């Protein structure tokens, strides 16, 4: 039933380099089924983008992985264990950090205190200090503002702080939810360059939720497309960028035979 296997890309059911494997997850918001049996895999050292329209279930899926929401069914395999339904602090300790949509900094704490709170689960003070310097090296503006209340930062700086705060937990996998939300195109470019650098230089595996599909696919190695709680496409980022459906519906490019106006999930049988 694996969507990955179905697409026939070079992804067997469980390769050695898969760090995070989501299997047939179902999650509910009250009575509403927000995730309808999603399976996906994240490989070590990769950036995996999760695309889809508003309400497709991308954020819900991330919340389910990070333990803020509990799934009704399914497994989340990480480090050989099923972490589905584990509490958020256990998930963070295991090495998965969720950088939430809308920044969510601690507004009255200083930049430095925010970073220290990112390292709440750690007690190695020397390591925390070192990682703080590492974060400052990627985001020099945060070093300048380290004693300033986080609520007084600009949107872009708050996003940098949110990413930096997530890094402080020494994540192996980072779940980034809409890092481009509300930022100017120039800042989006800058943030994504840093995300790429963090992935390459610090070896942090990233799972990225984005509405800005072009940017997200350019930075990613692999991509999944979600619609109404299901994964409808899975492929390498390059191939997704070339795909007509993705081009038309997520990149705003005109396909040869336009199918606009039709319900998206009715277009192709395979999309189900």
């Amino acid at each position, binding site marked *: 039933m694996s969507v990955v296997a179905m697409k026939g890309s070079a992804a067997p059911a469980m390769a050695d380099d898969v760090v995070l494997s989501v299997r047939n997850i179902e999650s509910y918001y009250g009575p509403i089924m927000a995730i309808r049996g999603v399976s996906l895999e994240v490989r070590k050292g990769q950036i995996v983008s999760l695309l889809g329209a508003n309400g497709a279930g991308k954020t819900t899926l991330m919340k389910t992985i990070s333990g803020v929401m509990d799934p009704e069914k399914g497994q989340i395999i990480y480090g050989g264990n099923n972490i589905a339904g584990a509490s958020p602090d256990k998930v963070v300790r295991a090495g998965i*950090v969720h950088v939430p949509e809308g920044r*969510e*900094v*601690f507004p009255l704490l200083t930049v430095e*205190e925010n970073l220290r709170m990112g390292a*709440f689960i750690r007690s190695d003070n020397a390591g925390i200090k070192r990682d703080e310097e590492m974060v400052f090296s990627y985001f020099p503006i945060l070093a300048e503002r380290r004693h300033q209340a986080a609520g007084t930062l600009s949107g872009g700086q708050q996003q940098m702080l949110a990413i930096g705060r997530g890094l402080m*937990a020494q994540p192996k996998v980072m779940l980034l939810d809409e890092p481009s939300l509300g930022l100017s195109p120039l800042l989006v470019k800058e943030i994504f360059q840093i995300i790429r650098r963090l992935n390459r230089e610090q070896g942090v595996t990233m799972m990225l939720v984005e509405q800005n599909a072009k940017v997200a696919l350019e930075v990613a190695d692999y991509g999944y497309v979600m619609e109404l709680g299901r994964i409808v496409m899975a492929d390498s980022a390059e191939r997704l960028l070339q795909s007509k459906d993705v081009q038309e519906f997520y990149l705003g490019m005109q396909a040869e035979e336009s199918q606009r106006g039709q319900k998206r999930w009715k277009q192709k049988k395979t999309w189900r």
Partner: protein
Amino acid sequence: MDVLQLLVSGLANGCVYGLVAMGFVLIYKATEAVNFAQGDFMMLGAFICLGLTNPQFMGLPFWVSVPVAIAIMGVFGYALDLVVLRRMSGQSQIAVIILTIALGFVLRFVAGLIWGHEPISLASPIAGKDIRLGGVVLGMDEIMVIGVTLAMTIALYFYFNRTKLGVAMQASSQNQLAAYYMGIPVKRIQSLIWALAGMVAAVAGILFASKGSIDPSIGLLGIKSFAAAVIGGFGSLPGALLGGVIVGLIEPFASRYIAAGYAQIMPYLLLFVILIFRPHGILAQVHQKKV
């Protein structure tokens, strides 16, 4: 000279109000509910200390009873959150507020059953002692109340700004969801804040009891402290202390210079004025809370 005595006794009363008000603020910041039993927590703390140390009850040494009473109130606060309030998460804040009002009645009743409804004095070694400064006579008890409150405030300041757990408490109250994302055990932190509120209330109660006799109805002083917390700026710890001191100072001066009957009204009159002209209180920390 007269003025100095009024000042000191008003300040001492104000410190007790301020400590109870801090309890209100702690709980409000952590849970966004108001603990209307905070005054009764204070009463209970005072009676536990009295029960431990007074000769007609257990007769333990005073300096043993004080930390034990504070610790008991800490455990009480923690257990209350763990056993009762945590089950109510997801309910409206009104439910929590009504529960605390009911809890206040229960505590008053239980204290009356155990220690009686007649006023009793705490057998404190400093009761009735005076300090003479030139021609002024100042009560040792009042000086101690002021000193302990000052020390307590400084300790709380350092706790909240310099320790990891204290900063985490601030963080969870500012953005609970983000605290969850960072792996901060928010629920345990909330229980610890209830414990802290219980301990602060115990200190306030012991200080209050060392200034005069107590009975189970002193918890109703919590209403005045609530007014103090609002005057100072609900949500701000320094504001709570400031509000308490203002209310404490208004009372003796109003009864001295206006008329005794008006003194009781003055704090609420001030509350009125503050709510009209500065609705967030004097030292409010106003920031948009994300839903």
